[in-house]
Each structure stands twice: as structure tokens, then as C-alpha cells.
């Protein structure tokens, strides 16, 4: 059936759920899984398909491949920075939340950091599941107000001359950071380069990748 689009109505439903569902997350999810399957709202095979996709197939290795290719293929890099959605589609990685992907590039003078302060928007198709900290109140609250403080906690000590650009993804645009290629990786294969790219570097909470791997 159709949604009511009535804020007050869903707020009241939430208050009922707050009062009546088990408080412990594991108990809650167990009770709801039985009910939703019994009710026919979910197919158990679909549940497995969702979980497996992000356990086995989709994850930050995709983003790392995109970055490594950008490091080694200037034409691809130009396409990536111009239209990242199309560029990742080219590599067969189009999927959830990749439709309006934007790639932003770190340089000696610029460091990029991605956050979603209003919920937790994330480019699932190329980075997989967001790490818990990305979805946490602390990161959402602090990344826009004190990005350098947050970066320091992640071990990234930025000199004052390096400008920070924080991308707060308030629309369906999603962001990935293209980190700098580490020195000493001349002649590395794309696969070897991809192995150096950390997930956090593509969010922006990591900066100096090591030629020896993370």
C-alpha cells in the first residue's frame, strides 16, 4: 500500500516500536526476521543475497582498483574526475549509490575528507559497507567542525599549509577520495598498486599510503 507521508504518524509508530520491541538488538532482529518472513514481506534467500554481496563481492577492493587504474592510466583518471559514475561503470562496478559518484583528488596542497552529517550516505558499490565510525555520531558531528582533530585521531598529522576540503554529502552525490600515489611505486602493476590503497584513504581518514602496503 501507499505511504501516508505523515511525519506525526510515523513518529507515533516509532514510539510504539520503542515501547514494544525488545531493546536488545540481537533479540529484536531475531523476532522481526521470523515475523517478516512469516508475513511474506521478505524472502530468506534475498536476505542471504544481500549479506553475501557485501561480504564476498562488493567492498573497498573495488575502489582500490579504481584508484590504481587512475594512477596508471591518465585518460581513465581524467574520465574518473569528470564523471566518476561512468568511470566505475566502465570497470563493471556500477551499483548501489554509484549513480552520481564524484571523485576528488588529493594533492600536495589539498586533503579531502568525506562525511554525511545528516545520515550516513556512502558509495556502497565501490567501498562496500561503511565502517561503523563513519556512521557514528562522533564522526558525523566532528568531521565538518574539526576535521584536523579527527584526522589526527586517525594518525594523519596535516601541516597547516595543506588545505582541507570536507565533502558533506547532503544529496545523492557520493564522494570518493583519490589518494596520492606513494613514492617508490614506479613500475608496480595495477594489482600491486591496488593492494596499497586503504579504504580509509578513499574516505579521507588516511593520507600517506606506504609503498610497502598498509
Amino acid at each position: 500500500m501507499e505511504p501516508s507521508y505523515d511525519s506525526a504518524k510515523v513518529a507515533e509508530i516509532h514510539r510504539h516500536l520503542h515501547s514494544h520491541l525488545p531493546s536488545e538488538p540481537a533479540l529484536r532482529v531475531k523476532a522481526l526476521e521470523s515475523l517478516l518472513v512469516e508475513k511474506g514481506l521478505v524472502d530468506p534467500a534475498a536476505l542471504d543475497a544481500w549479506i553475501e554481496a557485501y561480504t564476498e563481492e562488493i567492498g573497498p577492493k573495488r575502489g582500490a582498483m579504481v584508484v590504481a587504474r587512475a594512477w596508471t592510466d591518465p585518460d581513465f583518471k581524467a574520465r574518473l574526475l569528470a564523471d566518476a559514475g561512468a568511470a566505475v561503470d566502465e570497470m563493471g562496478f556500477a551499483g548501489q549509490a554509484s549513480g552520481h559518484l564524484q571523485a576528488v583528488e588529493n594533492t600536495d596542497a589539498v586533503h579531502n575528507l568525506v562525511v554525511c552529517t545528516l545520515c550516513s550516505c556512502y558509495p556502497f558499490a565501490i567501498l562496500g559497507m561503511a565502517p561503523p565510525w563513519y556512521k557514528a555520531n562522533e564522526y558525523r558531528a566532528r568531521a565538518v567542525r574539526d576535521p584536523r582533530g579527527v584526522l589526527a585521531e586517525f594518525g594523519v598529522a596535516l601541516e597547516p599549509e595543506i588545505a582541507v576540503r570536507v565533502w558533506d554529502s547532503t544529496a545523492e552525490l557520493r564522494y570518493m577520495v583519490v589518494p596520492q600515489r606513494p613514492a617508490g611505486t614506479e613500475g608496480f602493476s595495477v594489482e600491486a598498486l591496488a593492494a596499497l590503497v586503504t579504504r580509509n584513504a578513499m574516505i579521507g581518514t588516511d593520507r600517506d599510503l606506504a609503498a610497502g602496503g598498509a
Partner: protein
Amino acid sequence: MDGVFDLGGKQGFGPVDRAHEDEPYHSEADARAYALSVAARGERAYPIDWFRHTRENMVPTDYLTRPYFDQWLQTTLAMAIDAGDISLDEVISGKADALSRTPDPMRADDVRKALKTPVNFEREATSAPAFAVGDTVRTDHQGKPGHSRLPAYARGATGTVHAHRGAHLLPDAGAQGAHVPEHLYTVGFAARDLFPEVETNDTIYLDLWESYFVRR
């Protein structure tokens, strides 16, 4: 809507906890909650903006304390109850009413297809863009009554248009079931213009729709 979900720039929060950062799910319950939430939403008429707004209407302390996918699951459930796809009584009792089975859930094949299919939110513009790259823009000093995407920290603030993204579906309308294309801009704000204690030259970029700006 103004609420606790609008976390950007709020102070008093401590260090970022990096536990479980290298696992796709931080617990079995987390994985099941995620899958249940997306499988039950599936192809149904639960638009993304209505999902986000329904989550925003959760009990505020639940929003700030319950696990992330647990919140997704509760939100999906609230939407299903709202739309009449399941009743509150069924949820509270834990027993499905046999006479009202929902016939057609998302199947594993639908999942595999969804995982390869990006959703496009760009639409043909119905008017010329009011702003161009390089323009100075000022945001509204207050929020909107319902779902909207202008965070409190960037209200009444002056920034510079970094990019025009074409016309995208306006979330404010989407959360009311309407499809309204509106020009979308990425706007850069000097961090020191947003937060009184900032002394750096850093920049915060936000993607904002045309109606979030004051016409100058």
C-alpha cells in the same frame, strides 16, 4: 525538520571509535538487520527520502543510541506499518495475521539486479538555473517544516558555487511522495564562516538545492 539527527558541527562528542572497522558487519545481528531492512524495502513504494524522513522521526534517544542497521530495520518496519503492509498489532504480538500475507517480496534475483543498477536522480530541468559557478550564495536562516537537506550548521551562511549538477529530485518533495526536479549545486563554505572558533582556511562543501538559498 530540526532534530537530533542533524549532527554536523554539534559539540560535546568524544573520540571516534574505530572498533570493527575492517569487517563489513560488526555482528551477525548487524548483518541480519541490514538485510532485513533492504529486503523488506525492496521494490516497494518506499522512496529514499521517505525512508530518511521516517528515520528522522524515530524517538530521538533511539536515534542517538541504537545500532545503525537496527535503526534502518526499525525505520523500514515503521514505513511498512504506516503503509498498512503489516500491522502494529502483528509486530507487537510477533504473530503474522495469516489472512493478510504480503504476496510478492523481493527475490534473490531482484537483489542481484539491484546490486548492479545505480539509481539516477537527475531529471530534466523545468527552469533555467538561478546561479552559476563562482556566484556568491546565501542559505536560508531557517530549516523547512518537513524533510530537507540544509544542515543547521550551514543556515544563514554565505558560500560560493563550486559546481552546478543539473536538476535533481528535490528530497523535500520526495518525502511527500512528489517528484520535483530542482537545480542542485555544490557550494563551498569557508569553515571560518560556519564555526566561530575556526582559524584555518579549510572549506566545507555541501550539495544544496536551489530553494535552500535566499534570492539576493
